[in-house]
């Protein structure tokens, strides 16, 4: 299969769906100059005249307007340049888009996708580096996707654009240039709530989201060399979560380690860990462990920034602690 980057996979999903749905529009800040902030819309101005809505720096108006357009038409993509900026349109996301279907007794349909880059990058500090997925996943009515691979980015985005629920689509900035095999198929659709087993194993289940999937896989290589067989589960969407796949893995391995980039306190990792403990206690050989970012804002300087996010080494270290002690030969 041909390999393309995560960025190209997202661009491909957008352009395929723009062709498929003549009513689809994309709105946001700086969509077209240079192909957009992350080069996502190269040539879209020529390809889709009148359907790329350039907006001022007005996040509340962007998401609110995208919602109104989605309720009466759609699909609509609203791009928020950094997910940290979602904090200035949270009324539109949380009180409006998430709830209008319920509040209206099912009258409203909301084919709206808010695409937004999240996570650590390179020294861009506390207001451009956050992973706030737990905020959105906490809200009934929202769907939250966190693709970890180019193929998943394409397939999840296409599914999001064909649905009628508001989706917060979280793209990791450090994944944009990562390459991977991506089906050229215009019907490459990945359902929400369907985890992928990124690596099979028998001794330990590592549930990891977003960028942390690659850290977990890197850790699993190291652990394999030590004779520890780790299974890596990527939920792909954190709302809904695929409990069946997570539980099946834990039942098989008896050990669960949950890893996310977000601040650990109140995180999706914590939610997954608590649920495994509550629902599969008898399958566990030891306590569920969690890894997330420490309870500090993201610093800019490289040494501290590195300390502020989980690493593959952190995963290896905790995984080792979870395994039974081997007797000295």
């Amino acid at each position, binding site marked *: 299969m041909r390999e393309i980057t995560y960025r190209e996979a997202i661009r491909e999903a957008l352009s395929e769906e723009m062709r498929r749905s003549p009513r689809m529009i994309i709105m946001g800040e700086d969509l077209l100059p240079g192909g957009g902030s992350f080069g996502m819309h190269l040539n879209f101005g020529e390809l889709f005249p009148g359907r790329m809505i350039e907006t001022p720096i007005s996040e509340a108006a962007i998401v609110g307007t995208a*919602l109104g357009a989605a309720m009466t038409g759609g699909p609509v993509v609203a791009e928020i340049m950094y997910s940290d900026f979602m904090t200035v349109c949270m009324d539109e996301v949380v009180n409006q888009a998430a709830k209008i279907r319920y509040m209206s007794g099912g009258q409203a349909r909301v084919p709206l996708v808010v695409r937004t880059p999240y996570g650590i990058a390179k020294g861009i500090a506390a207001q451009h580096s956050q992973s706030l997925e737990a905020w959105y996943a906490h809200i009934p009515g929202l769907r939250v996707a966190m693709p970890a691979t180019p193929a998943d980015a394409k397939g999840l985005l296409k599914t999001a654009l064909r649905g009628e629920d508001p989706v917060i689509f979280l793209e990791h900035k450090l994944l944009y240039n990562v390459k991977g095999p991506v089906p050229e198929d215009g019907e490459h659709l990945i359902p929400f709530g369907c985890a992928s087993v990124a690596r099979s194993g028998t001794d330990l289940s590592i549930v990891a989201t977003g960028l942390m999937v690659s850290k977990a896989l890197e850790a699993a290589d190291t652990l394999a060399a030590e004779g520890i067989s780790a299974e890596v589960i990527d939920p792909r969407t954190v709302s809904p979560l695929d409990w069946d796949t997570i539980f099946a893995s834990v039942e098989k391995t008896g050990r669960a380690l949950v890893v996310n980039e977000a601040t650990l306190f109140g995180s999706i990792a914590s939610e997954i860990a608590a649920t495994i403990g509550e629902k599969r206690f008898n399958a566990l050989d030891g306590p569920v462990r969690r890894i997330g970012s420490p309870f500090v804002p993201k610093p800019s300087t490289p040494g501290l920034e590195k300390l502020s996010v989980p690493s593959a080494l952190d995963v290896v270290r905790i995984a080792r602690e979870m395994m039974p002690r081997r007797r000295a030969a």
Partner: protein
Amino acid sequence: MDNDLTPERLVGFWRDMLRIRAFERAAVYQSSLGKIYGALHSYEGQESCAVGICGALTSEDYVASTHRGHGHSIAKGARMDRMMAELFGRETGYCKGKGGSLHIADFSCGMLGANGIVGASYAIAAGAALNAKISKNGRVAVAFFGDGAVTRGTFHETTNMASLLKLPLLLVCENNDYAQYMHRSETMVFDNVADLASNYKIPGVQLDGNDVRAVFRAATTARERALAGDGPTLLELKTQRFTGHSSGDPQVYRTKASVDELRRTRDPIAAFERELMDAEMLGDGDAIRAAVDAEVAAAVAFAEASAYPNDEELFSDVYA
């Protein structure tokens, strides 16, 4: 669309204003009997605003409303019985009882919902207008809001963007002088909401919201401008609320005498009724009054006779 203010049309405006007032009085009364669970924000006193604006719209045009939204729903064509059932929390309500007063919506007549968040209507209406512009469906959208919502940042964000994109949008400020309990002189440094329009390079028109004809004409002009592709218009309707902010408001911030004075001198229905009678358009109006009373009584009966939603409804309509 017939924009002529024929006698039939004017009598229709009067009837719709009566319908709104009768609905609101019935709702407040039923609330006082304990039959309505949640809070109400009565539209009484502002009836000519909704009727004049919605009178200039087609049933396909969109309206995004506020917490004080019953009048907008009725004027836009929503049914009183399903509205009352919603207030009563019944399954036959517009939102199956899950929205209540703050979220009554009837998408079938373009009513995109009342809203519990002050200043949320602008962008939702702008989005409906954006979709109308892109799909060239010949519709316009109206954002209703109060003077208290003008101090939200969303007003600036949306008005600037809507003007930039030349959206077919009517921004309709119902200026009743109060942001919940605070008089606008205590919350705004500008005297007139309409004055803000010039900064956004759109027309800003201040008018007496009690003059239903003037409101209708201004909305008609704004709608024509919107459909011509010239962008939004800001209308500031000077109006007044005859009740407190919500059903539980003791109104310590104004005297009872001042409210009585408003009711005596600034009742949009009474003044209009006199005009219609003087012009011999109305007769005694008793048949219409009786029909309105019957409609409201039937709405209350419908609501009372309707069942509460099943427990399973708790979980439906969260997702598609």
